[in-house]
């Protein structure tokens, strides 16, 4: 860790897993953004990349060239937590524990993760675990130490179906997850060509934590490594900030429903080449 010291927090921190079953629905984006937003709320936050062998959270956060140690080193006791936790440059109190790129997921096991997270709880208010896709070992490793779970899906059949499967597996472990619906395109919902968040919530029947619009700023933010939540004009960034506030106890903060603005859709359409 380059300089900086971890402040101890008074109470034991919370471990929250961010999971989906399906890949590419926004787990890593959500982890980085909610983590940054919680840190902006003044909390000590660690985001942990659990995708051993396929790390990504580091590039999304723009910290890829500062990695010295990784989670496998920390779990195996080859380094201290403080050495594996990379301090974010832009956001105070935000730390990344990267995945190792050379191992496979079997190198960790659920018991070791429970022990490791027990240590993390002493240092951080919130520990967000960015779960890999699938429901195998990487999922087990990420869910075993979790107190809470956030399930993320997009308004598509395959994604909702996988979310349903994952929700079942979480219930079996006595965790009641909350839902984020990501990549909503309001214009398509209004036209009747995309499942609405009401449809998704009805099918999955779990508590909704937030709704995130399809937003070209997400891609721009990933390109530059500048946190999405610092971009005032990003609807997705602002949605993640409200999600973080809700997670952080502001339970009554209303959930904003993405609304269409024709000019926006034209912009996205032109960008991805399906504009009329």
């Amino acid at each position, binding site marked *: 860790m380059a300089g900086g010291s971890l402040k101890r927090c008074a109470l034991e921190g919370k471990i929250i897993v961010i999971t989906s079953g399906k890949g590419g629905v926004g787990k890593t984006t959500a982890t980085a953004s909610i983590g940054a937003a919680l840190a902006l709320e003044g909390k000590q936050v660690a985001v942990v990349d659990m995708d051993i062998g396929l790390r990504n959270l580091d590039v999304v956060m723009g910290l890829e060239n500062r990695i010295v140690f990784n989670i496998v080193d920390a779990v195996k006791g080859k380094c201290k937590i403080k050495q594996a936790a990379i301090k974010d440059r832009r956001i105070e109190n935000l730390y990344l524990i990267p995945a190792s790129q050379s191992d496979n997921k079997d190198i960790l096991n659920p018991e070791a993760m429970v022990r490791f997270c027990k240590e993390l709880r002493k240092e951080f208010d919130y520990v967000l675990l960015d779960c890999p896709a699938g429901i195998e070992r990487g999922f087990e490793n990420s869910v075993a130490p979790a107190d809470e779970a956030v399930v993320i899906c997009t308004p598509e*059949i395959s994604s*909702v179906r996988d979310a349903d499967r994952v929700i079942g597996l979480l219930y079996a472990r006595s965790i009641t997850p909350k839902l984020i619906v990501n990549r909503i395109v309001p214009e398509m*919902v209004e036209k*009747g*060509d995309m499942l609405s968040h009401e449809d998704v919530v009805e*099918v999955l029947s779990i508590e909704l934590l937030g709704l995130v619009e399809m937003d070209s700023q997400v891609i721009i933010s990933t390109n530059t490594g500048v946190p999405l939540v610092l971009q005032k004009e990003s609807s997705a960034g602002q949605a993640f900030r409200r999600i973080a506030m809700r997670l952080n106890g502001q339970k009554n903060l209303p959930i904003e429903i993405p609304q269409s603005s024709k000019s926006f859709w034209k912009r996205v359409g032109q960008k991805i080449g399906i504009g009329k």
Partner: protein
Amino acid sequence: MLNGWLKKLVGKSDSKNVAKKRLQFALIYDKLEVSDEVLIKLHQDIVDVISRYFEIDKETLKLDIRKSEGKSALVVNTPILSAKRPF
């Protein structure tokens, strides 16, 4: 047909309702998928229960899950050899 034309005229589409129906059925089917182990246990339990009331040929009892659009049925088929006397 006419409905479809009207929808096109007002720019309304229906693909999300198709998606929702397919999704709901998929989830029901997924949950009805029973492992072989469960089926073997269920088979034994059904044989035991029916045997309390009827003489049956335990070997020929057949257990099936039949899926058709919208619902699934558990089908048990066994020839009854004779009814058992109450005492």
